[in-house]
């Protein structure tokens, strides 16, 4: 009857994640609905926004590009905070959060790059320029992919989490240096001639749809994040049950 005691032991260990899952079960539908409503309103506002006299229809891409770019950065901050949670507070859900956030962040980063280059094609006449912002975001994508590769390479999830947490934090400390160096490099090689949207000068008729879209996508991110965390907890439980099953077969 040792196995039974192990199982109850593991269940008490998972008490916190269990409560998390029931919370997530209740939150996920609401978040999904909220994101859908916000994005629907945002999309409607975006398409009814006035066309830019210079850029025409392509300005509409901005309404999804800017939220993607914002999320690509916010998601890394979520990972960095989770990394602190893993290393400093040793919270059991922190590494689940960090692991779940990395692929979502990578996808938003890819979307930011893709929409950026769709936007850039008519502006710059080419799909890709080594503009300071694009390059920084590209480096950020590389960091996401590195973190995902590290998570996958570690067979022991808790060990992988702590390794990834350290790399994520070192990366987070480095982001300002990378940003600064890329800006330096960019001004050295090609003077800033490309089109830029500067926040404060944006026209209010464009700002409102942008805000709604940004909030909508942020809610969408947390919807995905909660679902991914739930899936990760389930995946770990399956792993634990398999190990118990293997031990029973031996006994």
């Amino acid at each position: 009857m040792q196995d039974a005691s192990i199982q109850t032991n593991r269940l008490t260990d998972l008490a916190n994640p269990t409560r998390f899952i029931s919370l997530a079960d209740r939150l996920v539908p609401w978040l999904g609905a909220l994101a859908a409503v916000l994005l629907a309103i945002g999309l409607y506002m975006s398409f009814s926004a006035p066309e830019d006299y210079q850029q025409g229809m392509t300005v509409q891409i901005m309404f999804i590009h800017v939220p993607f770019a914002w999320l690509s950065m916010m998601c890394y901050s979520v990972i960095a905070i989770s990394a602190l949670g893993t290393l400093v507070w040793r919270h059991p859900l922190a590494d689940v959060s960090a692991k779940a956030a990395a692929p979502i962040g990578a996808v938003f980063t890819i979307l930011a790059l893709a929409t950026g280059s769709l936007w850039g094609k008519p502006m710059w006449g080419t799909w890709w320029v080594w503009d300071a912002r694009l390059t920084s975001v590209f480096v950020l994508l590389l960091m996401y992919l590195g973190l995902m590769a590290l998570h996958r390479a570690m067979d022991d999830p808790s060990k992988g989490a702590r390794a990834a947490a350290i790399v994520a934090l070192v990366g987070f400390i480095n982001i300002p240096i990378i940003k600064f160096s890329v800006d330096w490099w960019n001004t050295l090689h090609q003077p800033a001639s490309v089109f830029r949207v500067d926040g404060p000068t944006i026209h209010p008729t464009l700002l409102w749809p942008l805000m709604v879209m940004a909030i909508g996508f942020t809610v969408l991110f947390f919807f995905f994040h909660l679902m991914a965390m739930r899936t990760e907890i389930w995946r770990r439980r399956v792993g634990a049950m398999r190990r118990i099953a293997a031990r029973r077969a031996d006994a």
Partner: protein
Amino acid sequence: MQLVVENLGAERGGEPVFEGIGFELSEGEGLVVTGPNGAGKSTLLRVVAGLLPAMAGGAELRGSGLDHTGLSGACHYLGPLNAMKPALTVGENLAFWQAFLGDAGLSVSDALDRVDLGTIDHLPFAYLSTGQKRRVSIARLLVSRRPVWLLDEPTSGLDRGSQDRFAELLDDHLASGGIFVAATHIDLGLEQVGELVMKAGH
């Protein structure tokens, strides 16, 4: 000086390995840990040394009178691996550990004499046989003075004669007021040491 282990529990890869282990050793006392493979003998030694975190309880050294703050600074850990660089000579390897671990005990050549390897300190470590490598590793315990020895399968690869020599070294260590905890399958032939039997599946 006392090595006190209380209600120690550990896990590996999220699975509990053992729990509720406790013992107390005073100066001149040794403990032999036995048990089948997978019972957690190595894990126990690594937790006591401080290489793995304890899930419950703890291990500490009381009244050592030394200026080490904790246990890991007062112990020698002899793991399953020899911790020697194959490309360096036996003498260089031991001299490095003597300098790094501090509190020099026997000189390198004296320590090698004690394990019957006095003549080969100029050979690269890679050239030695398995048993000779293990004996060099045992000599590391002598070049630098530490009151507590944590030994994980210390006699693996040693022949009968070398095992007896090693038992003498352990006796000397106890006689000089030392403490040891050894995980092993083999009867070390020591009298008056305690035994802790660990079972698989705790």
